């Protein structure tokens, strides 16, 4: 059974249809990339998977591990192992990163029937994950994303992913705005998470990230549909030809 199966997914926001029939199958252990021009629906797809309620699914279904994902609230999805790294991580003054991460981890652990971690055990775990992302331990004491640089915010997303160990991770343009050093750190963090039981969906506008996270499959999204799928070479091809030719193809 596929870990994720999206069938004929249509979604709209404020009455405007953005996704117009997406079909996608991901097996555990795979890394897929979704590429496409601005406005093609990439981020919408990521948000719909995470359960944001501003998007209305009008048709189609999403099966995650055989379950109807669309029936689950965002927190239920997260506890079942779905994780989305935000394109624009939210700043939350007044809540420390460590408190937030521990609350999230314990919610997930509780759901999985595992014992909740106390502050000490959590700290030990978090420090290990921080090393992976070349992050300073003081990150934990700072308020969630408040005053973080763009790169720090993205690393913080990957840190959350590393702590929560999801089965399906969706990276929503995690590479945008990163300099090459930050990009490599983020890519290393993601690569360290590749595992036979986990699927990773990388949503990106640029091929650059895929030099460091080599996907098993690449899908090109345009006009709310997947217009082409292929292996990693498709990304390179796109880098040369650009999205313009594709959009012309869709319009035709």
């Amino acid at each position, binding site marked *: 059974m596929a870990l994720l199966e999206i069938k004929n997914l249509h979604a709209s926001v404020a009455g405007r249809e953005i996704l117009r029939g997406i079909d996608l199958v991901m097996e555990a252990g795979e890394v897929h990339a979704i590429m496409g021009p601005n406005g093609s629906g990439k981020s919408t797809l990521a948000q719909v998977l995470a359960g944001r309620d501003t998007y209305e699914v009008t048709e189609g279904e999403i099966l995650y591990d055989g379950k109807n994902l669309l029936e689950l609230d965002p*927190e239920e999805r997260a506890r079942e192992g779905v994780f989305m790294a935000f394109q624009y991580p939210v700043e939350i003054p007044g809540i420390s990163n460590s408190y937030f991460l521990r609350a999230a981890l314990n919610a997930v652990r509780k759901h999985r029937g595992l014992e909740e971690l106390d502050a000490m055990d959590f700290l030990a775990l978090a420090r290990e994950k921080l090393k992976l992302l070349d992050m300073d331990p003081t990150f934990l004491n700072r308020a969630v994303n408040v005053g973080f640089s763009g790169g720090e915010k993205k690393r913080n997303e990957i840190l959350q992913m590393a702590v929560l160990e999801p089965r399906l991770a969706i990276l929503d343009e995690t590479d945008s705005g990163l300099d090459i050093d930050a990009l490599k750190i983020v890519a290393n963090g993601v690569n360290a998470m590749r595992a036979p039981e986990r699927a990773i969906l990388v949503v990106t506008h640029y091929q650059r990230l895929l030099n460091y996270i080599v996907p098993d499959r690449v899908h090109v999204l345009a006009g709310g549909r997947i217009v082409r799928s292929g292996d990693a070479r498709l990304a390179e091809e796109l880098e040369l030809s650009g999205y313009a030719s594709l959009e012309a193809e869709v319009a035709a």
Partner: protein
Amino acid sequence: MKQLEEIRSEAARSFAERGFPTPRQEEWRFTNVAPLAKLNFAPAEEAARGLDEELRAELARLGWGGLRLVFVDGRFAPELSTAKWPRGVTAGPLSGANGTAARHLARYAPYQEHAFVAWNTASFRDGAFVEVAAGTVLEEPVELVYLSTRAGVPVVSHPRSLVVAGRASQLTLIEVYAGRGTDYLSNAVTEIVAAEGAVVDHYKLELEDTGAFHVGTVQVQAARDVNLSTCAISLGGKLVRNEVNSVLQQGASATLNGLYVVSGTQHIDNRTVVDHAEPNGTSFELYKGILDDRASGVFNGKIVVRQPAQKTDAKQTNKNLLLSKEAVINTKPELRIFADDVRCTHGATIGQIDREAIFYLTSRGIGERQARELLTLAFARDILDRVRLEPLRAWLDARLWEKFHDRAG
């Protein structure tokens, strides 16, 4: 110098002439005390029944490792109070106080202009007196606890406190108001006199029963180079008015913090006046409010910068979080600036819980209810962070967490 008795009879006349304020008076525009004014209050001292189990338990929860004076229904309770005070500190009931008390008592709080202050000044039977000698650094906080017991009829007590901090002394002071019952009124007046260079860290915890009225004025006289911080936490009461007035002399600095958390049909009114009387003073003010259900709130922050008070630096901020559509807040800054070389800023915000933040937290597995609790507590966080007394900060954190947890349920 006027005798105290003379002041008290003037106060009685003032109260008799003025009567209770009405919303026609600008300072009372958003707070109507009619529900209180129509009650016929008996003096609490006479209706008092002593502490019941519930209040005993509450009293046991209040305490931050400090020295304390406890009053029950306006009467001093020596069996609940600290008997032996450290060197350099004189403390006890006003009824047995010394000459310093007589020199200062009722000299600062504005009984000529303020009906409730006049009423208290005319009517208080006892109260707390604390004097910290010059140069004394008192490590333990001093807790002044005023409890009201369940009386069965409307009763009023007039808690009165006088705190004198000597030259270059240091003091942490916690006023606590708590009680059980409906239609009781605590009408409190506190005068704090801080001599040159004193450091005063003051907290007022208003934890009255949600059936109670509380009206209180804290009047602070801050001499040259005094470092004053006050923090007014209001959680209880059905109709509450808190005033914190401070007069700052040369180079004095004041930090005024406040947090009010109300729900149901509670009404809370915070009024502060910072009077920069002399040059080089600073005041930094942050009041935050969390209002749920049909609760209502008022924030009125007045900053006066008198003509000699050049180089004053004053900043005032009021932020409010409304958890329901019916909750109301009226926020009103008031600046009176007579000096020309000053910096004065003010700002107010009113907002709701950020939906983006809720989605962010829930997308990580945190339940929506817990996410709301976390974000509500987070809103109060910067006030809690400013509470310097660690045991009190932890206590407040737990108390608020409990409160939001109950609310969200």
